[in-house]
């Protein structure tokens, strides 16, 4: 039998059902790996060993009576942005260092109801603002493929833990690429569903019209299984869409013959590292070998997607983060002189630099005299970008390209210049602006570091993306590659 930690979620589910091992054994094995490896990676903010083992025991009992859910006894990790009742939720920030939520996020509820075992809360860029997990109050996360490198962000802890075989799956959130970019940089699968597909209730808000919850796994099949549990209408989220959730695992086995794959003319330009481009082209060739056809498409407003994002996201976050004022929860400055001091110091002390910068950017673009030129303008450009995608999808089923312009960069490399960091998201951001489902799939190595193939679909076509990815993974084994130190 393959080592427990190397198995995918799907394989583990079979193993549990067959009685090859118990959930408690599996959970303990992974907790041992956490203890062994977390120091190197710093992937966790909170490890919930006792709770995990208790849930695992429960799951084993449920299996005896056949009353377990579809994820019965399977271990996962939650990005520390999801509120978990009774367990600290920090959002990677000093502001919420000791915040214990009195309620569970819908995503947490659903996965727990299905029987999942939660190993802990993963480290992340503070308030999900970043592409390298370097802005976390709890220190950066390291990439299992090269400990000097970033695993990406903001779901860096989740992606590192999955890549290092510490957990078979982890939840993440994606606002501008925060699931897909780390997945690409760590050789894992990351999916961000259609906006409104998964409830945002309990997911601490960064940019409300862009945020979506998703999952990081080691195979498309695993992602299909988990997404099926996480997705669905939630009356507590006004932006949640009431559409039935298909069983994503059913259609992934179908052929992609005749699938029309769009290749974006603007993608393969100077900003893309040559080797990374090569890996992506090879991946597309595999799709073609499976019967897909390629069509050139154009997204003419692509280069405006990053500045658009950096108006919309900060604007929304500047408002979303106003609730952190030291009054009802969160960090409070000591001995405030007056109300103004309470606010300014609590927030000044509680938030890190990047968060403060984005709050100020957002405040600026919404402020009197600037609203039209920035916020309103950005929302107009956003529509142009969404329309570009709409036009493209008239002729293709899926758009394929690189997830990131290059493999993982060294920690500390881009911290000084915000713009260089922002440009990391150039391929992923469009899907958030248009609310489209998108995923990253490992497609090879560049200088011993993974890169990902990016797939985008029209609204509610997660099935097509997962099928495309799964068929690709039947032909390739990039997704099974493991960094040497974590085998």
């Amino acid at each position: 039998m393959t080592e427990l930690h190397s198995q995918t979620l799907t394989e583990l589910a079979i193993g549990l059902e067959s009685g090859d091992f118990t959930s408690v054994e599996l959970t303990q094995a992974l907790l041992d790996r956490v203890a062994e490896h977390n120091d190197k990676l710093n992937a966790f903010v909170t490890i919930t060993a006792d709770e995990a083992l208790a849930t695992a025991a429960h799951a084993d009992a449920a299996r005896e009576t056949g009353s377990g859910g579809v994820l019965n006894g399977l271990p996962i990790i939650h990005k520390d942005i999801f509120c978990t009742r009774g367990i600290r939720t920090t959002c990677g920030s000093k502001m919420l260092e000791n915040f214990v939520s009195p309620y569970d996020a819908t995503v947490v509820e659903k996965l727990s109801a299905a029987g999942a075992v939660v190993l802990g809360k993963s480290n992340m860029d503070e308030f999900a603002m970043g592409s390298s997990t370097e802005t976390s109050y709890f220190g950066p996360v390291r990439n299992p493929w090269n400990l000097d490198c970033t695993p990406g962000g903001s779901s860096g802890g989740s992606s590192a833990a999955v890549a290092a075989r510490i957990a078979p799956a982890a939840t993440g959130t994606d606002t501008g690429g925060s699931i897909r970019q780390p997945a690409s940089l760590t050789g894992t699968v990351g999916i961000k569903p259609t906006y409104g597909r998964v409830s945002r209730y309990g997911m601490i808000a960064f940019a409300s019209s862009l945020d979506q919850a998703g999952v990081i796994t080691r195979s498309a099949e695993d992602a299909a299984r988990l997404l099926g549990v996480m997705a669905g209408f939630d009356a507590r989220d006004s932006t949640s869409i009431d559409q039935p959730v298909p069983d994503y695992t059913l259609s992934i086995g179908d052929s992609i013959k005749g699938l029309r794959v769009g290749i974006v003319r603007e993608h393969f330009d100077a900003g893309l590292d040559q080797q990374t481009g090569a890996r992506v082209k090879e991946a597309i060739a595999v799709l073609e070998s499976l019967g897909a056809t390629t069509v050139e498409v154009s997204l003419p407003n692509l280069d405006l997607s990053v500045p658009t994002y950096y108006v919309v996201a900060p604007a929304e976050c500047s408002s979303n983060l106003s609730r952190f004022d030291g009054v009802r929860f969160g960090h409070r400055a000591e001995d405030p002189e007056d109300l103004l001091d309470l606010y300014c110091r609590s927030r000044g002390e509680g938030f890190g630099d990047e968060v403060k910068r984005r709050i100020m950017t957002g405040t600026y673009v919404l402020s009197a005299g600037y609203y039209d030129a920035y916020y309103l303008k950005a929302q107009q450009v956003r529509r142009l970008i969404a329309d570009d995608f709409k036009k493209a999808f008239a002729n293709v089923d899926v758009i394929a390209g690189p997830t990131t312009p290059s493999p993982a960069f060294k920690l500390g490399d881009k911290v000084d210049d915000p713009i260089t960091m922002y440009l990391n998201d150039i391929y992923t951001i469009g899907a958030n602006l248009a609310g489209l489902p998108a995923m990253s799939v490992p497609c090879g190595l560049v200088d011993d570091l993974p890169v990902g193939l990016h797939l985008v679909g029209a609204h509610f076509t997660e099935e097509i993306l997962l099928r495309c990815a799964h068929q690709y993974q039947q032909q390739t084994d990039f997704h099974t590659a493991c960094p040497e130190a974590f085998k």
Partner: protein
Amino acid sequence: MGISSFSGWEVVIGLEVHAQLATKAKIFSGASTAYGAEPNTQACLVDLGYPGVLPVLNEEVVRMATLFGLAVNATVARRSVFARKNYFYPDLPKGYQISQYELPIVEHGELFITDGDGNERRIGITRAHLEEDAGKSIHEGLGASSGIDLNRAGTPLLEIVSEPDLRSAKEAVAYLRKIHTIVRYLGISDGNMQEGSFRCDANVSVRRLGQKELGTRAELKNLNSFRFIEKAINFEIERQIELIKDGGEVVQETRLYDSDKDETRSMRSKEEANDYRYFPDPDLLPVEISEEYIEAIRVTLPELPDAKQQRFVNDYDLKSDAAAILTTSRALADYFEAVVGATDARAQVAANWVLGELSGALNRENKGIGDSRIAATDLAGLVNRIHDHTISGKIAKQVFEAMWEGEGTADEVIEAKGLEQITDSSAIETIVDRVIAANPGPVEEYKAGKDKLMGFFVGQVMKETQGQANPEQVNQILKAKLND
């Protein structure tokens, strides 16, 4: 202060009303809106602005706003948008208030008031929009701290904004009373100014007659009774005029009304030029209202105060004033009509009793018509006994008081106290004879021409009969006997 015009000057007033909508639950959460609960026991996670929570819109507020829009002849927007109004204050947990900005749910309405000269004036209603209320701050008893109670946070408000069409404090009050009546008629707000479910702010400016530009306006807040509103506005008008006359400039600011001193004071800068950075709330989608929905709500509109008032004038032959007072609340109007429906007497008589004795009794005990100790049908019963001459109007007042004290219906009281009017002519004659015999002096004076003494004789007869003799008959018989 009875002056309603300041010669040489024109007053321009715009009014904002925040009416709390009488829903069970809050506008964006399922917490209760009931008044008077222990602090923070009705503030759920959404109201507290906890991380990760989201707003979901209460359908009842849409119905209520639509109803209001239809009642004031306004356009109900097919599509309206919630926007965030961003500012920091402890009673605002999210650091923003969810309101409506560019696309409110109701626009371009109107209502009609009667001006000082009795003419009908049309006052424009610019807009009415939905928003959430903030919490409350307590500043006393906590030492160097203020305490925040968020029970009220998230209670639905309808903010109603008038065009700056009002020209005097009296008009302002008339407009506000009208809005107050309408929202209560519609059942969308209880309009309780003491409890804060009906709040008025006034924007007041002055300009010299003939001046085109509007003067700088001051916003008056903390106006929690109609009486105070009138006084505050008048004070402010005078203040501004004096200021300009003295060569000063009116500053755009918020001023609080101090009812003890009867003056307005500048508020210590809570606002400091707030930039609210409005933008559409991304957690909420646009509210879409169909034609069908609007029509379905329209058929539920009750008869509105103006129409009811007119109908009372037409159908019941009442004066406009009386009809206006009777229609200030639906409950009072319904009570009145119930009385009318149960009596053969003229509606005017019923009106007199409702507006007179009944209102007097209610006011003395600070009660509303809903707490009347005499039911409408019972009051009608009393009116009927006057109408059929069982008792006189004067005796009826006695009966009324007994009924108010719970002694029974009109008939029961009349019977118990033996108050039936004496209409037996021979009985009256006997008493008249006695009175004439007992007062030879006045009789002579009367016969000599002092007609005024008839009142004295009538009084004597009434005294002897404890007021129960039928006054017309007493008069008749006295005249007949004295003119002999």
